């Protein structure tokens, strides 16, 4: 539908630009305020910073276990992503390329999880982790996140493994390669772009996860940055420049990932949309 006249093209461009301002300006404003001191902000919250003053970042990084919490978040999200990719790609390979009885049932069970609202699980999961002595344990949260990531990640890998031609796999099989060998040295390398997209999307999801991280890791030493924002807001609600520095630093990893890999992220989300 690219037959609009020149005048209306300009109008569309203007509308879309204005809309882009509504998503970008608040975030840019947040960045700008972090450079103000509390006094400057109180005097005029729309003033430009008098100097390139990184004091607020300094305060955040020096205090509140911020570095420890970044480490917790990084460890939890990264472990979840890596372990989940391994488990789910192996599952998707088995379900799509191997012939065995019962795999339809396994896929049906996995599909159930696609429609499962996550927060419904919180009570029993909390109880199960307590009985396994894994509450207040970062690996406990990783284990649960891995389980939670299975439906989405298996579906995504399966769609792509399905596209790998059987002839390649069969010829490897004739050459004497076992199923695991085929998975490891043929399927996984071919799957690299999908693995990368799934890794990025899952990393963002679990970096940002609030409810489970809050309930399952109540010990302050294990807290994630996303959860820490709750208490930061209470403590520093009256000092927006400091609060915004904390918000920005907490979101920095996903912002960087988005700036670097936006094409892949947009492609991945779009592909997931067309069922």
């Amino acid at each position, binding site marked *: 539908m690219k*037959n609009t006249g020149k005048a209306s093209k300009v109008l569309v461009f203007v509308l879309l630009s204005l809309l882009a301002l509504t998503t970008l300006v608040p975030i840019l404003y947040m960045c700008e305020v972090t450079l103000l001191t509390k006094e400057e902000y109180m005097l005029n919250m729309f003033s430009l910073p008098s100097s390139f003053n990184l004091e607020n970042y300094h305060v955040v990084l020096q205090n509140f276990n911020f570095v420890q919490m970044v480490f917790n978040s990084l460890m939890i999200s990264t472990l979840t992503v890596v372990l989940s990719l391994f488990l789910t790609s192996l599952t998707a390979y088995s379900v799509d390329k191997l012939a065995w009885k019962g795999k339809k049932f396994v896929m049906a069970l996995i599909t159930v999880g696609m429609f499962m609202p996550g927060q419904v*699980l919180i009570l029993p999961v909390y109880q199960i982790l307590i009985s396994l002595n894994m509450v207040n344990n970062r690996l406990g949260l990783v284990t649960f996140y891995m389980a939670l990531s299975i439906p989405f990640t298996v579906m995504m890998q399966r769609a792509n493994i399905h596209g790998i031609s059987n002839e390649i796999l069969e010829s490897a099989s004739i050459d004497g390669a076992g199923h695991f060998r085929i998975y490891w040295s043929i399927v996984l390398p071919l799957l690299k772009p999908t693995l990368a997209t799934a890794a990025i999307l899952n990393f963002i999801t679990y970096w940002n996860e609030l409810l489970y991280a809050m309930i399952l890791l109540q010990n302050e030493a294990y807290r994630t940055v996303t959860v820490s*924002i709750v208490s930061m807001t209470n403590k520093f609600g009256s000092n927006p420049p400091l609060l915004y520095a904390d918000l920005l630093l907490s979101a920095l990893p996903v912002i960087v990932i988005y700036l670097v890999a936006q094409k892949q992220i947009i492609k991945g989300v779009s592909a997931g*949309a067309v069922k």
Partner: protein
Amino acid sequence: MKAKHRQQIEGIAYVLPAMLLYSCFVLIPILCVYVYSTMEWDGMGEMTFVGLANFVEIFKSAEFRTALGNNIKFFILGVPLWTIFPMIVAVLLHEEVKGWRFFRSAYFFPTVISTSVLATLFKTFFLYDGPVNRIGALFGLEPFEWFAHGNIAIGLITIAVNWMGFGSAVLIFLSGMANFPPEIYEAAELDGAKWWRMLRSITLPLLRPTLQFVIMLNIMSVFTGMFGFVFMITGGGPGYDTTVLEYLLYTKAFELHDMGYASALSVVLFVIVVLVTLLQRKVTKGNDEVQL
């Protein structure tokens, strides 16, 4: 024969680790919720079987009715906004004016940042001495307590959800439109059809399945995607004015330790989600029949 047998064993072995994990932390918990929902339990002590008493208590309680009412308010405000707004944006982006890829990235940008961060930012904008009231003062408006009025707070949360999430609905609409055969537009153009006419007679009808998909996602969000926003922006208040079912579940379970009530509430939420999914299936099926 031997190879076949081997494949059966290996096939099961490869799904076993994932399925074990998935059973322990997704499938068994679903069953547990049903069992808990028939128990009186504080989460630590003894469980007592009470039958359907928790459900009776839920349907009698004023807070459940308030919370459900708030979900319905979000439904009425949110589902049209979160559906129509991104659809218009997608239709405009589909024109592929200069810089449309940049716009698409800019719209999607907030969706990668956590609800905690953006909802907190959003909240500070609307505080009594925040930027919104300051800008209002420039136009001679009195400062306003935005979150002190239930319905206004619900409206603001609805807008916040749109601000942070419309970019992903735009992507869904765009990928729906990417599958449209270009020949249809070319043929219509040859027939001298105008832009509006093509929008009405080609784009919108072809978008119908995508539209239904987005509507279903938005209905799901109303019942399962509001926790972070309510928790960060209003904490369910003032009073219970912005408390939704999910948030009630959280307070019952982790603040009041009434696990039976909370589990029964989980079951209610689960039933709502299943009903929405079934409805979506039925509507989609109806479509196919129409097309035949």
